[in-house]
């Protein structure tokens, strides 16, 4: 409690997402000493500091690379990465696709607020085209990444999206991500009333949460809807859940070949 007050603005969605992760860890009954949470730099990446595990706040974009070292050196640790949309998909985009490609057993939760929060509202790789940021004063001409699609095509074996509004569902998605023996990516759609919300006239934090409620469609429901009905909506839920060889286990097999020799 001596860590409070936390650094987040009133109405910020990151706290809700952090709670979902803590709840998922609790529900799974993981040993706190064996949980390692790694983050990069950004408002989102400050979450591990408030969590009672082995927590590692690294450099901007590099969380997954640090986490890869932790996990490979000590596979019995449950390694969870908390990262922002800029941290994960801009400066850290290369580490993201390669961690996914290796299918290393790390669960990554991207706190996507569609903006660079910590540095004051610049456009990010997930800012929708046409939206405003301090560095997109005339409207963003970039096209945004769909981070779950990116991770899935790079080889992640568990991929999902939840939102700060659908917090209970998010707990379940994170639980399944942790249980997946391989690289899992869960995007948590966050709320940044201070920059994204204000710049783009999205109203209060409550208004943005209501927008999430009204525009998120579960992938299972979406299957039954027409493309007109899905116009302007975004998908949440579980997008991919497959099994592939896991990186640290494959490496262990190489070590095992030499155990007899030693």
């Amino acid at each position, binding site marked *: 409690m001596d*860590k409070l007050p936390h650094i987040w603005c009133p109405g910020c969605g990151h706290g809700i997402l952090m709670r979902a992760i803590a709840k998922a860890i609790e529900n799974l009954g993981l040993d*706190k*000493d*064996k949980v*390692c949470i*790694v983050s990069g730099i950004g408002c989102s990446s*400050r979450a*591990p*500091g408030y969590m*009672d*595990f*082995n*927590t*590692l*706040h*690294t*450099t901007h974009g*590099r969380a997954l*690379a*640090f*986490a*890869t*070292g*932790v*996990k*490979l*050196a*000590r596979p*019995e*640790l449950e390694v969870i990465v908390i990262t922002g949309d800029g941290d994960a998909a801009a400066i850290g985009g*290369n*580490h993201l696709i*390669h961690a996914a490609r290796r299918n290393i057993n790390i669960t990554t939760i991207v706190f996507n607020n569609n903006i660079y929060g910590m540095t004051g509202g610049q456009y990010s790789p997930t800012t929708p085209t046409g939206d405003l940021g301090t560095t997109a004063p005339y409207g963003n001409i970039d096209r945004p990444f769909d981070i779950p699609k990116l991770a899935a095509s790079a080889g992640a074996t568990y991929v999902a999206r939840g939102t700060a509004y659908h917090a209970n569902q998010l707990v379940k998605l994170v639980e399944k991500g942790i249980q997946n023996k391989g690289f899992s990516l869960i995007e948590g759609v966050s709320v940044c009333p201070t920059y994204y919300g204000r710049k783009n006239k999205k109203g209060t934090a409550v208004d943005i949460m209501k927008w999430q409620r009204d525009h998120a469609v579960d992938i299972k429901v979406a299957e039954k809807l027409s493309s007109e009905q899905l116009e302007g909506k975004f998908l949440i839920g579980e997008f991919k859940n497959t099994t592939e060889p896991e990186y640290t286990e494959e*490496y262990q097999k*190489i*070590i095992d*070949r*030499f*155990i007899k*020799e*030693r």
Partner: protein
Amino acid sequence: MKKNNIKLMQGNEACVEGAIAAGMRFYGGYPITPSTEIAEGSAQKLPRVGGKFIQMEDEIGGIAATIGAALTGVKAMTATSGPGFSLKQENIGYAAMAEIPCVIVNVQRHGPSTGLPTSPSQGDVMQAKWGTHGDHPVIALSPSSVKETFDLTIRCFNLAEKYRTPVILLLDEIVGHMREGIAIPDTSELEIIDRKKPSQDDKDYLAYKVEEGEYVAPMAGFGDGFRYHVTGLVHDESGFPTNSNAVADKLCTRLMKKIEDNIDDIVTYEELYMEDAEVVVLSYGGTARSAKSAVKKAREKGLKVGMFRPITIWPFPEKQIKEIADKVKGIIVAELNYGQLVLEVERVVKGSSDIFHIGKVDGDIITPDEILSKIEEVI
């Protein structure tokens, strides 16, 4: 030591042998000439001793994975050359601030930029000290032979573990690719230092709480049963970030002092014919080999020349060089760059002796004859 233990190998291979002997059990890196043999050797040897090797997607990932692994309690290393060394700088600063022991090898090659990738250079001496942002201490050692590469790689790990800090092995292409016969000592003959860990029943463990008279705190590995926070932000004794100027001052001053106050423990050097020397050649790394042969030839000619070879480049052996400058009339600095370590020599000598420089930036080595003619010119 058994005679049949003598093996012919490259400096880069000796670096891998030394690292494994020191207890390296993790390597994270990205290939680059002329350091690649260190990655290849590590990939081959690590799984055989139960260690791990990973080729990351770039050098930034290489050092990040290395630091992550080191935090779990293993000894970890990464190796690179010029362009990759530049990429690693931000995370070298991170390891310094978060006090994570690790070893970074830089086999120096010609630059700037991709320069002459297969040619030697000593152009990264200043980058080793000032490459990352902010003020922080650095330890960098530079070997002159294959055997010394083996020994200094071990010493890098020992210093990293003892002072909880990243340590740089400044190799150069000359030594990295040179082949010499070396006797690999038995591990029992080696001095190996392991980081101090908290006792398992230390309920009040704080990862950055330093006891009176100490410079670093014991370091628990992630997963050992002590949960704590690690950050590159200014942090208190628990590791939690703070904006306090007082805490920042205390932390950054301690980081400097832990190296500065232990300079006699960290600095090593080699001296040759110094008793009656009137002129001294100062050289290090691969270039010191040419210097040694030039000084020997000069002695054969009856010239009173000595040689000083810093083995520890950073922290700089100030005290020793000041003493030399008071006794001799000239110091010739021979290094494979346009003038880097010579600036440090000038800084500490403060005019009490003449200083001459032999440098080169064409990708070729400095020959003994070039140094000898300089000696004859100034003596």
